[in-house]
């Protein structure tokens, strides 16, 4: 059988010959490891995969992958990826970006790639800080953050990447955490499998400039109270003893304790395939410390893909005008001949 002859690639086969140069202890390492593992388990082909990044610590990522790759310019990776995927639908395209890259300088491209539903996978490493430029606040930094550029505390209202993506009607939206290795691997896998744009926000610890930004979501002792793993068709339950849940009170989510007359059936059930993004948006608004923050797939629906439609139009035009002849084009319309 032909398939038996194909070499089976290991995670290490996806590593390039370049030394990885992130700070020791950086959350990026875990994400890189999971990506290689997912590609190996999914049987993805190195030569059919392109990693495109912008600028920032995370954007070094393509150099470390033994695939095709482009380390482009700040914020524009989705635009390069759109050009690649639109012309080469046979390639799998990943965009690796950060909170500054995707949401500040690249906010425009982020939004438009998502609303067009180009079949690319946008993986956003959110560390709530500018790491490469050594520690200025980012568009996801919390209000009051003291950094080199905000000595009296930042006064910017931060953007919520998931809410923003859902506002652009992202067809696939997910969140995971760098150190939740298994969850991260599963999430990346789902993202890669999804056809159309996939957006994954990963809470990533920058241990040099913003250490512990997500400790509420990673500390063994408290994380089960602060994050809620959502699953399609399942009620929203969390807590170390799985004794708390989320219930809808009108349009507002509220935290309730199970027991005392409240059963699982009273809770909000997750539906990642809901045609309207309303539920996903509502979930995205659940923020620490008032709520446990959802991780997992918030939304996964099928929607028309830009790149596919572009190529369909080409195919249709070729079908309507078979044997398009350039001489015929040149000589169409009013012409005259000089002897």
């Amino acid at each position, binding site marked *: 059988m032909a398939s038996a002859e194909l070499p089976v690639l290991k995670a290490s086969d996806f590593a390039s010959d370049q030394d990885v140069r992130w700070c020791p202890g950086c959350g990026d390492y875990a994400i890189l490891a999971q990506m290689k593992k997912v590609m190996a388990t999914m049987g993805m082909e190195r030569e059919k995969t*392109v990693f495109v990044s912008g600028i920032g610590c995370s954007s070094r990522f393509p150099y470390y992958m033994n695939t095709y790759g482009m380390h482009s310019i700040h914020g524009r990776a989705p635009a*390069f990826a759109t050009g*690649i995927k*639109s*012309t080469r639908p046979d390639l799998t395209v990943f965009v690796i970006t950060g909170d500054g890259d995707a949401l500040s300088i690249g906010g425009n491209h982020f939004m438009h790639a998502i609303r067009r539903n180009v079949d690319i996978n946008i993986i956003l490493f959110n560390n709530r800080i500018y790491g490469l430029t050594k520690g200025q606040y980012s568009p996801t930094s919390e209000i009051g953050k003291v950094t080199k550029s905000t000595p009296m505390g930042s006064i910017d209202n931060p953007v919520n990447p998931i809410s923003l993506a859902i506002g652009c009607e992202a067809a696939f939206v997910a969140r995971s955490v760098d150190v939740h290795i298994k969850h991260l691997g599963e999430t990346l896998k789902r993202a890669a499998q999804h056809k159309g744009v996939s957006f994954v926000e990963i809470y990533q610890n920058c241990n040099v400039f913003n250490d512990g930004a997500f400790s509420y979501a990673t500390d063994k002792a408290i994380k089960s109270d602060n994050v809620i793993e959502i699953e399609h068709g399942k009620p929203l339950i969390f807590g170390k003893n799985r004794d708390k849940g989320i219930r809808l009170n009108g349009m507002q989510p509220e935290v309730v304790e199970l027991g005392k007359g409240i059963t699982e059936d009273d809770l909000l059930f997750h539906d990642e395939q809901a045609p309207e993004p309303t539920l996903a948006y509502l979930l995205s608004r659940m923020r620490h410390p008032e709520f446990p923050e959802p991780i997992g797939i918030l939304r996964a629906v099928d929607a028309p893909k830009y790149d596919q439609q572009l190529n369909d139009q080409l195919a249709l035009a070729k079908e309507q005008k078979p044997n*398009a002849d350039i001489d015929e084009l*040149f*000589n169409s319309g009013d012409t005259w001949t*000089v002897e």
Partner: protein
Amino acid sequence: MSTSTEGQTESTKEVVQIEEATIRFCGDSGDGMQLAGTQLTNTSALAGNDVATFPDFPAEIRAPRGTLAGVSGFQISFASRDIFTPGEIVDAMVAMNPAALKTNLADLKRGGVLIANSDMFVKKGLEQAGYETNPLADDSLDSYQLFEVPMTKMTRLAVEGLDLTMKEADRCRNFFAMGLVFWLYGRSLDPTLRFIESKFKRLPAIAEANKRALNTGYNYGETTDAFTSSYQVEKAKLTPGTYRNMTGNELSAWGLIAAAKLSNKELFLGSYPITPASDILHELSRRKEFGIRTFQAEDEIAAVCSAIGAAYAGHMALTTSSGPGIALKGEGMGLAVMMELPMIIINVQRGGPSTGLPTKTEQSDLLQVMFGRNGECPMPVIAAKSPSDCFQTSIDAWRIAARLMTPVMILSDGYIANGSEPWRIPKFSDLEPIPISHPGPRADDDEPFMPYARDEMLARPWALPGTVGLMHRVGGLEKSDGDGNVCYDPDNHQHMIETRAKKVANAAKLIGPLEVMGPEKGKLLVLSWGGTYGSCRTAVTQLQEEGQEVAHAHIRWINPFPENLSEILSSYEHVLIPELNMGQLSLLIRNQFLINTINLNKVKGKPFAVEEIVVKARDILG
């Protein structure tokens, strides 16, 4: 009323033979002047004249009706000889309202024909145009052949019975004006009648109304006593071949389609709408059957970046814009230079700086495209010289881009992009192919792939994603030559900067020598680039006919310059460089060749008048 065209050419009035005529239609931007001009252009071209056109749009599309700001014009020159410009002195002018008369009259020659729609020369229109008295009624127009024609009334009468609203009826006035001008120059109505039929296929009443208006205008010329003679321009002696009338933007697009096919590539255009470049996007968008993908991006930056992505993926990549958009693309173009990927960037120049004069022409982005990127970032630059040259320019640009693995900048401008002239249709099989090769797959135990290995022209290989064993990463950080890995080594950086510059300079070996029209040496060389070709060529021809010792050279490749430019420049006592900017080519020439140049600069949003160049040249010649 009959729409027969019989008897159109058998005028009973005197027919005067002339060599050349320049006509301008002007009116409110809603009056259909561009359409009138285009129809006269096509008809004249079909009649065998050489033609050149100059559409002049108002900057504000929604300027209030009847105001000076809303005046739109279209100028056409047709001749029985070769012409290079749409003329400056207008022989006959149609003014649809007082504002049009006011803004255009200065260009009408003394004794020229002035046809005015007298129905519009009433209180409101006169006030809007700032006339205190009616110019048709006082003696201010005495030095012209004034024809007051009640076009509105006559058009309304012509379309009576067709059940049109007043507004619809009045919209046919441009066809009346066309009919009248067609009579005046002995032009056939047939092409326009055909046009009306296909354009208004689904609106038979409108089609009929327009036909009637056209015929009525024509018959008015024939029957009214006001016009005593009409004019006849013989066929021009053009190079044998089949022709069609084309604008520069259309031909830029067709040249790209041809270049893609010549190189066996599919074309990808990433673009953001901007005046005056959008027509290239429009034209390519409707040619999908040739494998052309167009992507209207969210902004200028995404436009260039998507194109670079397409180039990396192995397509013929293109982005189109004008000065303000080119400014935004700067960082992206720098990346394309660094990644050494082939692509084309077209800058259809307009008046700057900033938003400037969007609908007017200028050549003031030359230094921007030469130097407007951070770092040492050279890129080949070619400028089209005329509407028809836009075709070959696209092909030449892609040939260099693909051969040297570099982005190439094409400069066009609003004047040649919107202007039109007869284009001699080439046979595709006569065009020189553009060979492109890509490295093949490699096994794991082969030598590692070197994405920045170089050939004799210093070009690197174009490895396509999807090819087994060629996985490699590109990016904006400095590369180590050969393996292409990120490299901060000081000597490597120096080496790479020099290599990229040498590679661009190597284009000179591929572009051929510069030709000179006129004496090989002597007193004066007129050196031009871009859209001023026509004015300069006409001016120098005129001077040579006067017996002056003057030559003309026109540069298409500005970076690198043709190899023999230095020798040419040193063969003349004086070098005159007319430019629609404040001396940008002049600065480059002075810097590279250490010679003195004489500048002739104009930045009025208009092309040079031939006379301006002639006068300056005579000045120098003494």
